[in-house]
């Protein structure tokens, strides 16, 4: 069983973000990075598939700067076998990222390629689908369960009011939802061993961008609240305002 997981590092949600002077990007100098949480579910599921099958390998792949090796090492510490860094110092748009990943994946012949359902920074939910298209493989996003029997895969998804079950042949590309599993912590011994595990660094072909970021602006400051009165006398007015002006009840 050959498995690849594509992950992205994203700013920790506790990090306070500031905008770079160009107004088109985030100032990353003070940012604490983490593996995008949905990608952690993907890594965990890849490890579980390998464990269930008793054999196979899991490779984690990311596109980013050379300092992304810390997050790759974290994945190696969780038990991933090896890692590939598609090195790019420039920020890439979704199709460029997808081309970079596809150029690595197309020659690997993975049975399963896993993504997180979306990265929690850009929230684009594009790259998994784009890669699947470039590889001409089926793509199922938001998966809640996956099992593999021979060359057949069975997937479950949470849908409105129930569960959808999908079956089909390998190979496949999937996007992990949070109901899939509960990711393990990297073990300290594995973190130390991860030092010796290989990280292959490649320079991928990314082609031209399809999108350009024109501007990034913070959300407008919240308008000041309004005090409609005090004590029990204010209740009637508050209900009227919530019903007629805010229209929330």
């Amino acid at each position, binding site marked *: 069983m050959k498995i690849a997981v594509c992950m992205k590092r994203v700013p920790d949600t*506790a990090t306070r973000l500031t905008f770079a002077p160009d107004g088109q990007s985030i100032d990353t100098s003070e940012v604490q990075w983490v593996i995008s949480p949905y990608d952690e579910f993907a890594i965990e599921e890849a490890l579980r598939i390998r464990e269930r099958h008793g054999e196979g390998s899991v490779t984690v792949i990311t596109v980013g700067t050379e300092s992304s*090796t810390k997050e790759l*090492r*974290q994945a190696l510490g969780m038990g991933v076998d090896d890692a590939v860094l598609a090195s790019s110092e420039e920020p890439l748009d979704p199709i460029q990222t997808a081309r970079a990943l596809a150029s690595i994946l197309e020659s690997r012949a993975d049975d399963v390629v896993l993504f997180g359902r979306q990265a929690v920074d850009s929230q684009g939910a594009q790259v998994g689908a784009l890669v699947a298209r470039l590889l001409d493989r089926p793509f199922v996003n938001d998966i809640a369960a996956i099992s593999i029997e021979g060359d057949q895969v069975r997937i479950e998804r949470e849908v409105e009011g129930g569960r959808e079950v999908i079956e089909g042949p390998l190979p496949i590309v999937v996007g992990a939802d949070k109901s899939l599993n509960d990711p393990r*912590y*990297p*073990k*300290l011994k594995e*973190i*130390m061993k991860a030092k010796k595990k290989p990280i292959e660094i490649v320079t991928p072909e990314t082609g031209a961008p399809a999108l350009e970021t024109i501007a990034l602006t913070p959300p407008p400051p919240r308008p000041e609240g309004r005090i409609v009165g005090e004590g029990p006398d204010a209740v009637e007015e508050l209900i009227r305002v919530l019903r007629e002006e805010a229209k929330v009840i």
Partner: protein
Amino acid sequence: MEQFEGSDFYNLDDLLTEEQRLIRDTVREFVDDQVVPCIEDCFMTDRFPLQIIPTLGELGLLGANLNGYDCAGLDNISYGLIMQELERGDSGVRSFVSVQGGLVMYPIHRYGSDEQKDKFLPQLASGKMIGCFGLTEPDHGSDPSGMITHAVEDGDEYVLNGNKMWITNGCISDVAVVWAKLDDRIRGFLVEKGSPGFTTTKQEKKFSLRASTTSELHFQDCRIPKANLLPGADGLAGPLTCLTQARYGIAWGVVGSAMACFDAAKKYSLSRIQFDRPIGGFQLVQAKLAEMLSEITKAQLLCLRLAQLKDSGKMTAQQVSLSKRNNVYWALEIARSARDLLGANGVTHEYPVGRHMLNLESVKTYEGTHDIHTLILGHEITGIPAYK
């Protein structure tokens, strides 16, 4: 509660390796997930969070700086960072890990026979066995050489008599490393749970380290096999060398408590409005915060250098005394100052500050009181021991 943010005013992260940062972040996440949500209740109900022990073992946090026997074999900066992160959660949790690693696994690793190592170390590393360290007695704390507990040979066994007090993990332990006099020499004995004549009592009514089990150990004609003597330890240096390990962990650990208090105080000072402005805008509050950050930064620098000395084999017990004494003193001062800054909210468990403050009173006292470390340094400076 808002997510914890550590302090790193001097960019000390730049001095850490990728692995060290990853280890620190892993333990921080573990503490956020599994310690922070339950620790207030544990403290209020006077119990250790036993449910975290398997994960402590699985992650490799027990005896993490020892080699072999399923231990993680980490360097001493990584080990220190683990202590810091655990104590950011609670001093009781760090105490559990300190005792298991520094005071139980370490002496077995260093002074034990091969049979003892094979039997106990992998079990202790996985958390399947819990250990405690019995040195202090009801009437012999700072002066352990006066201990009353003693052992005599009887055929294939040793017979122990005496009492130990203030023993972390005592009641929940599977094995106790007990120091007792044999022919007037202090020796180490491994006393297993269920040994005839060995009982424990939980110590109640503590206002500090309430999320840690503190016990008395009683030996009344307690019989253990001769094979349970630690062959490599002879004299007071045996237990004192173990204490140096544990004190090293404390020097790092309390930086975690201090960071937790500073983090809470800083956030509170920015959100608490009095006289129409955040209290962080007032000079008296800023003076407190500046002092806290200065002392945290100095304590971090002491720890890092101490770790380098330890890794290179040059660290002395006196250097550890200086760091333990300084860092615990300032962590407690920071906790008190943060408590003050939080006003009435500081006396509730809505914030972790009061709990850390109460815990640190014990940390200041155990593993060599503040004053005893002062005398160790005085001895080192003048060559004259004041405690003899």
